[in-house]
């Protein structure tokens, strides 16, 4: 029975992994990139300077700007700059035409030093990868549903993989390169098992993040269908007071920051929401920024009277279940991660991506061996091969194309941001077509070489089209810009090496079997 159980789990792991592997590869790669979304955005809008300014100063500037441009709005939202996101952005919402509807939002980015509107080239920046990894460029809410379903399948694949891996402890440190399929499996197991804490955390937390959408049964049962009561109980600071209709001077917002600092033992403010600015019933809600703690504080906020500056309420200490949910959220997002930890998150994300990729390669490789004699691959295997190539090397080409488009498209082009995204999908689509017409190994080599060229081109295009090239940014100490250029360069070199290895292994296949068997025996040495 034990053997039957393991076999069943192996079957489940294999098929769940295949059917959702292509989607999960894309989710993992773009999600991994999203850990550096602020740095990516900074590279993609190099005109916007990264300047260190105090929160009080930028908040005062934001208040002045909003007073001038959005005096009649029903709500102001101010996102203060932090170490990684040096921009000061303000949004305001007009009162909705019908109650219960969402009012129109306007968003502007301000220079935190001068308070003037910032003009950077129009781009989605790193936010594109962040949103793609859970929305998948599909209309709301279908993308989120699909990505959460994929997360559940990932969870099943992880656990079934652990169950199937008989020698998980014995083979813990085992990695045997240069042994064909065996090496791929060793690699798959290595990036799987050694980084397992991350994989389990990231997968389960992604389920928790969207749990109110995908598993609402308990809310509906316990609250008798009234979901709003549940959300009000969990996020008490989000309810907005009715405007009084009487004009009143809004207090200086910067003075509220000091009070928040004290109450949060030095913690900083991430966002301010001003309800009914300029009205007698104005209120200001300060939300903590996530930089100094792991557990994401859901709904934790301070509410002040907008006219007198007096504190109206604080959210109480979060109860344990909500803190646990917050911990899942915080761990997934990694807002608290400093530079070193952030790179580790990135490496773990790449490991997860590699785990999925190696799995897909192994799936096909095992079955290709059985059909090695026949010249034509059966349709199902050919389909898997095309999807493997397009979803992995094709996606890498698309990412590089996205960055290149940012430097190549004219700055004042209309719909520029959309065309950068279009470049991503056009490149990806072309890679699918290319994989369909070229033989397997040739397609891999072609696309890996193309991706390598495009990634190496990124810092070159940067140097050719902007003054913020590697030489300048290294001297200035703009590590985000320099790091981006260097990482693209490194990726290009790595992909070129991968293409070369792929090309070479194709050549050695033509060596007659007997000779290869001999050399393997010699390889094994005394043991």
């Amino acid at each position, binding site marked *: 029975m034990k053997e039957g159980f393991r076999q069943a789990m192996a079957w489940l792991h294999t098929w769940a992994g295949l059917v959702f592997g292509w989607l999960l590869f894309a989710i993992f790669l773009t999600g991994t990139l999203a850990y550096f979304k602020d740095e990516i955005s900074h590279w993609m809008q190099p005109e916007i300077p990264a300047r260190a300014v105090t929160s009080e100063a930028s908040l005062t500037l934001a208040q002045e700007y909003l007073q001038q441009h959005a005096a009649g709005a029903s709500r102001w939202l101010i996102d203060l700059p932090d170490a990684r996101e040096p921009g000061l952005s303000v949004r305001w919402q007009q009162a909705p035409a019908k109650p219960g509807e969402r009012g129109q939002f306007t968003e502007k980015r301000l220079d935190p030093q001068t308070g003037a509107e910032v003009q950077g080239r129009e781009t989605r920046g790193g936010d594109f990868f962040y949103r793609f990894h859970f929305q998948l460029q599909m209309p709301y809410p279908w993308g989120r549903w699909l990505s959460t379903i994929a997360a559940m399948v990932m969870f099943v694949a992880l656990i079934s993989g652990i169950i199937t891996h008989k020698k998980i402890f014995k083979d*813990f*440190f085992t*990695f045997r*390169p240069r042994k064909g399929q065996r090496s791929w499996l060793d690699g798959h197991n*290595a990036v799987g098992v*050694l980084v397992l804490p991350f994989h389990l955390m990231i997968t389960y937390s992604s389920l928790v993040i969207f749990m109110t959408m995908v598993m609402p049964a308990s809310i509906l049962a316990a609250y008798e269908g009234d979901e709003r009561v549940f959300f009000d109980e969990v996020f008490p600071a989000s309810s907005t007071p009715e405007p009084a209709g009487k004009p009143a001077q809004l207090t200086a917002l910067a003075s509220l920051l000091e009070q928040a600092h004290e109450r949060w033992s030095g913690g900083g403010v991430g966002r301010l929401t001003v309800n009914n600015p300029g009205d007698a019933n104005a209120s200001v809600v300060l939300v903590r920024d996530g930089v100094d*703690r792991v557990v994401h504080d859901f709904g934790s906020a301070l509410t002040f009277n907008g006219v007198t500056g007096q504190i109206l309420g604080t959210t109480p200490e979060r109860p344990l279940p909500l803190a646990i949910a917050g911990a899942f959220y915080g761990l997934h997002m990694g807002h608290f991660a400093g530079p070193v930890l952030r790179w580790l998150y990135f490496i773990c994300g790449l490991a997860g991506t590699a785990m999925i990729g190696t799995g897909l390669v192994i799936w096909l490789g095992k079955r290709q061996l059985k059909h090695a004699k026949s010249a034509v691959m059966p349709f199902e295997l050919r389909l898997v091969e095309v999807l493997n190539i397009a979803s992995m090397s094709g996606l890498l080409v698309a990412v590089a194309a996205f960055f290149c488009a940012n430097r190549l498209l004219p700055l004042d082009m209309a719909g520029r941001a959309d065309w950068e995204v279009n470049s991503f999908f056009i490149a990806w689509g072309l890679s699918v077509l290319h994989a369909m017409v070229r033989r397997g190994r040739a397609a891999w080599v072609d696309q890996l070489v193309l991706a390598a060229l495009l990634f190496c081109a990124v810092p070159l295009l940067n140097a050719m089209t902007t003054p913020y090239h590697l030489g300048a940014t290294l001297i200035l100490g703009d590590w985000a810009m320099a790091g981006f250029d260097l990482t693209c360069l490194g990726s290009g070199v790595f992909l070129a090496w991968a293409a070369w290895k792929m090309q070479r292994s194709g050549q050695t296949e033509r060596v007659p079997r007997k000779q290869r068997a001999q050399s393997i025996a010699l390889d094994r040495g005394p043991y």
Partner: protein
Amino acid sequence: MLLALLLCYGGFTALCLSMDRHHTELLGRKPSVRRRQGMRIQGWLLLALSLWAAVSATGWGLGLVQWFAVLMLSGLLLVLLLPYRPRLALSLAGVSLLASPVAAFAQC
């Protein structure tokens, strides 16, 4: 995080050496029963010490996260070095253990 990383790497190397297969690959002979037991105890001890190092520096929340992060990183590093540069893998472990008192001093 440095101290935790050094101790983790040393601990993993010890655990690796406690296995017949890897001990033979790295040191040329099978480990005796005492050697195997000793390596295993040392390995787990070093990992536990690295957990203490991580948590004592930054508290339980961030400390646990950092510990898992260095745990995974050191595991990956060791497994990558073993087949390609086994001597480097071993000497890194030695250096890590030698350097850890210095790192401990810097941390406290």
